[in-house]
């Protein structure tokens, strides 16, 4: 123990806000735009107060025109600015998918290396708040399918605080997925926190018997599952992917080499999803290290329903992860 004051408690939301405040203060090329980011303070309160601090030119409320304001972010980035575009939820981002895929992810290559797009897009993802089928999906796996963009999923307060700066420093588009259930998560910032290496997954809990591979809103569930498994003498290692594209195969495969068993936990749908990609890579590259088939815990193949018990049944739960880990351990 040192004699210094402990860091005050903070939240995931405040960490995101502090990251944006720091970026806006440090670089006058940075600006924020999106629906209700200014006067309202952000649909989830992330940008509250930034309008007063930085003014309406740099904290821009936009019309409900996802395609236009995401595309405008692309154009401004091409021109040399460093926009942060907030899209309210991943379901709404589909209205801007043309701009994200056909322009942001494509222009550099299609122009033979001339047109770089240093754009950061932030959006909420995930279920668990009884918001039903048009505000609850986890489509980050779709974005991770696209060459040309980097996809981030901060799952901790530290990553919420320190992923933005390296994302803004990236010369290419970065899409950041914030799980809606995390905004109120509170904790203290670990001492010595700093910019995150965006190429690396993180081992959040060491273990020797089974690897739980997850990210974003499912990290907490995986850690809870690991705790329950520990009570039964099963030491689960928890890997937080953090960056969904490009995937850090080295960390994942390194863990599986030690544990010989893998469970992938993903709030996205199973079919054709990110969990399928991770499982395929483990199988392709780590087949001879495996002592059991790779297990997957995913959302049920259904539009996320409103009623609490149905929503809970649709999502990966701690008990599901524990059961999958037991199947893997045998």
């Amino acid at each position, binding site marked *: 123990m040192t004699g210094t004051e402990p860091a005050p408690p903070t939240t995931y939301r405040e960490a995101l806000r502090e990251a944006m405040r720091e970026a806006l203060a440090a670089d006058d090329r940075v600006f924020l735009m999106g629906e209700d980011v200014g006067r309202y303070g952000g649909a989830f309160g992330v940008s509250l107060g930034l309008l007063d601090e930085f003014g309406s030119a740099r904290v821009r409320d936009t019309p409900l025109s996802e395609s236009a304001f995401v595309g405008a972010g692309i*154009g401004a980035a091409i021109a040399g600015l460093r926009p942060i575009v907030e899209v309210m939820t991943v379901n709404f981002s589909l209205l801007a998918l043309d701009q994200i895929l056909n322009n942001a992810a494509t222009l550099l290559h*299609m122009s033979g290396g*001339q047109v770089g797009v240093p754009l950061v897009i932030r959006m909420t993802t995930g279920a668990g708040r009884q918001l039903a089928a048009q505000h609850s999906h986890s489509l980050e796996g779709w974005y991770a399918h696209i060459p040309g963009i980097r996809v981030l999923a901060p799952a901790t307060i530290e990553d919420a605080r320190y992923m933005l700066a390296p994302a803004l420093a990236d010369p*290419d588009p970065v899409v950041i997925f914030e799980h809606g259930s995390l905004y109120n998560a509170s904790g203290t910032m670990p001492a010595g926190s700093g910019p995150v290496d965006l190429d690396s997954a993180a081992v959040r809990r060491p273990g020797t018997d089974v690897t739980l591979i997850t990210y974003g809103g499912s990290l907490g569930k995986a850690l809870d599952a690991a705790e329950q498994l520990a009570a039964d003498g099963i030491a689960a290692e928890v890997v937080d992917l953090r960056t969904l594209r490009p995937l850090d195969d080295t960390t994942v495969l390194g863990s599986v080499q030690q544990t010989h068993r893998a469970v992938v936990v993903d709030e996205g749908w199973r079919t054709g999803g990110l969990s399928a990609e991770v499982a395929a890579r483990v199988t392709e590259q780590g087949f001879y290290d495996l002592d059991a088939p790779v297990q997957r815990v995913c959302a049920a193949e259904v539009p996320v329903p409103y009623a609490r018990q149905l929503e809970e049944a649709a999502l990966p739960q701690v008990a599901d992860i524990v059961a999958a880990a037991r199947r893997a351990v045998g």
Partner: protein
Amino acid sequence: MIRRTAANPRRSRQRTAGGMDHQLAMLREMVRIRRFEERCVELYSSGEIRGFVHLCIGEEAVSVGVNRALTAEDSVVTTYREHGHALARGVPAEAVFAEMLGRVTGCSRGRGGSMHLFDTARRFYGGHGIVAGGLPVAAGLALAARMRGQPNLTCCFFGDGAFAEGEFHETANLAALWDLPLLLICENNLYAMGTPLVREHAQTDLAARAASYGLVAWAADGMDVLAVEHAARRAARAVREGGGPYFLELRTYRFRAHSMYDPDLYRDKTEIEQWKERDPITRLADLMCADGSLDGHGLELIEKEIADELDQAVDRAREGGLEPAEDLLRFVRSPASEPS
């Protein structure tokens, strides 16, 4: 302010800047674009150019007239029918040919082809194949200029088909709301691929509809390069002076099919012939011949110079190297973030 007027061609001629040399230069640019695209047809027929190729033959007055209103600091975003826009902007013919031949010396290193010409040194930001997809990007380029207090504008070309897309309407509203220095050029050639304007739009007066967003919108004769230039100069000046976005509907016509794949079964041949009587090149040449500033010899000279230039450009384009397949994954991410 919502205003809508039709540019008067006669007035426009009187007011057009420059004299005979100016008109001769514009005539030459239009002929050059026409002959360039005729070479494209030859190269396509011989199998050297593949993929989609969309020709602007008949629409040259739009490229040439609008470009006259732009400065080197302005940005241009355009569509897949952009050979004319690129050449008018100064992208070398050789680089455009090389791009269509898939050479590394092409203006997009052979990664774009006919539809995706880029030249950032000339602030020419493509070459967009998704109808209306360039409009939001153009708004962003304009936003950056405005946020930095720069005097340059962004000129965005799109067609009557794009006017039916949500991205046009979202962008028009955003640009007007934020007073963006954006020059919106609707190149209305009366067909969205094969669908005529009247089967696509309940209200076909596109300038009137654009004006409803609170931006200034005019219609002008897109077959008259002097009228186009005049309207574009007026609009560009107003945009530069802080007048917000301007919209020009330039009514024009493509003499060729939509693309090289298109058998052009949906248009009446007499309609095409009627529009050819308004050929922008013939129109300006006749005007210049009538006032004595051009004669047959002068035209021959122009044709000869252009033919020589294009011969050389095609030859040099053919000499361009092919990028090796090992370099396939270059430019998916910037060099700084590419895996080593």
